[in-house]
């Protein structure tokens, strides 16, 4: 892993935890303060953008950025920028591509499982594998994050409903990457592989469950049919 200058390292060591703390305070304020809590935007961010299915691939991406060299990070960031910008500006082309997957339209175009699989594959391998796979994984994870912002937007193109979740996405990745990068431990490499296997397993189960046909015992009971036979006298009001 390439070394940064001591001054930059010291700055980064504080920057990550400070960013994480600031974001967590903002989330706590949005959840607890009555004025903010009433806002539909805050409620939507808390329920949708910060849902486990959305944040876990981003945490994995942040972890991957913390585990690769600064050069590889510099390679991954443009991929991530292209991915999220492409999904936000040209969502139709991406949707047309993802629509090739069966049942895609009814399962948010499998944006979640694809994110999990991409970053899980990058994390589960060796350090060298991780360095090579993180940039393409960055493209996929960022594109899927952008797509989920577009698909789950309840406001029909209100700008705040686009930029707030995008900022939250960037915050999660940056806070995780910078905090972990500043506190490297030898066991991080082992944990990265284990985390990668979790993310792969979640992606496969999540996608697999969505592709499975519904079980018959989940089918709703038959609707009661009113008896309208003419031989039964109808009570007049």
């Amino acid at each position, binding site marked *: 892993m390439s070394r940064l200058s001591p001054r930059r390292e010291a700055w980064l060591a504080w920057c990550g935890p400070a960013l994480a703390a600031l974001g967590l305070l903002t989330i706590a304020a949005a959840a607890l303060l009555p004025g903010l809590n009433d806002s539909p935007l805050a409620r939507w961010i808390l329920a949708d953008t910060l849902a486990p299915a959305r944040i876990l691939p981003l945490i994995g991406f942040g972890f991957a950025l913390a585990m690769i060299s600064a050069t590889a990070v510099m390679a991954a960031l443009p991929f991530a920028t292209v991915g999220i910008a492409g999904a936000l500006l040209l969502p139709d082309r991406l949707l047309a591509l993802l629509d090739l997957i069966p049942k895609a339209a009814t399962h948010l175009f499998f944006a979640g499982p694809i994110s999990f699989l991409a970053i899980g594959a990058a994390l589960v391998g060796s350090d060298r594998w991780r360095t090579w796979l993180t940039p393409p994984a960055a493209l996929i994870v960022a594109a899927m994050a952008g797509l989920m912002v577009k698909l789950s937007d309840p406001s029909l193109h209100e700008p705040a409903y686009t930029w707030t979740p995008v900022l939250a996405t960037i915050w999660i990745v940056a806070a995780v990457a910078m905090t972990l990068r500043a506190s490297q431990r030898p066991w991080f490499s082992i944990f990265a592989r284990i985390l990668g296997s*979790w993310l792969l*397993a979640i992606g496969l189960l999540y996608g697999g469950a969505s592709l499975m046909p519904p079980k018959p015992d*989940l089918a709703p009971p038959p609707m009661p049919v009113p008896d309208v036979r003419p031989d039964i006298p109808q009570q007049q009001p």
Partner: protein
Amino acid sequence: MNTMIVRCMAAAAAIAALGSWPLPAAAHIISGAQGGFGSGFAHPLTGPDHFLAMFAVGLWGAQMGGRAVWTLPVTFPLIMVGGGIMGMLGLPLPGIEIGIALSILALGLAISLAWRPVEWIALILISYFALCHGYAHGAELPLSADPADYAIGFVLATGMIHLFGIGVGLALNKPVGGKLARGLGALIGLGGIYFLVPAVTAA
């Protein structure tokens, strides 16, 4: 170090006691629609058979040392997915309950005997056990109210139990020549017998 080991043992004992609370032998395979993240996360923690097997995988990996510390817990969830998909598809895999109980017994025995096989043998064993556990959960996953969040919670909790097992294993490996870890393995093996008897009787 001693304080840490005592704390680990106390935590392990508390969780094992909680996990070993008498439950029906077939508690692992549950029926009816499940909830989302919370339900998926709680299931491995409250199902003593699943908890013991996951804990033993981490403990055995830590006891074996070297690459096994991560290859075992990495292999388990990935193969578990294969079993899960078989379960979702409803493919026949007889003797699941027996396989789950055997996994606990075999892992407990391996730990108590401090068995250090060649890595690929350990991985094949782990893979079979993962298939059994995955099948049981895959069969119930499409019944979940929110399969995505259920899968996330379930895999996260499973992975955390692996990590807990690794932590306890690393803490117990050196003191008293590793006898504490072996003793814990024997207890896990007894748990396996507890689950195996009703599973065989019911078969």
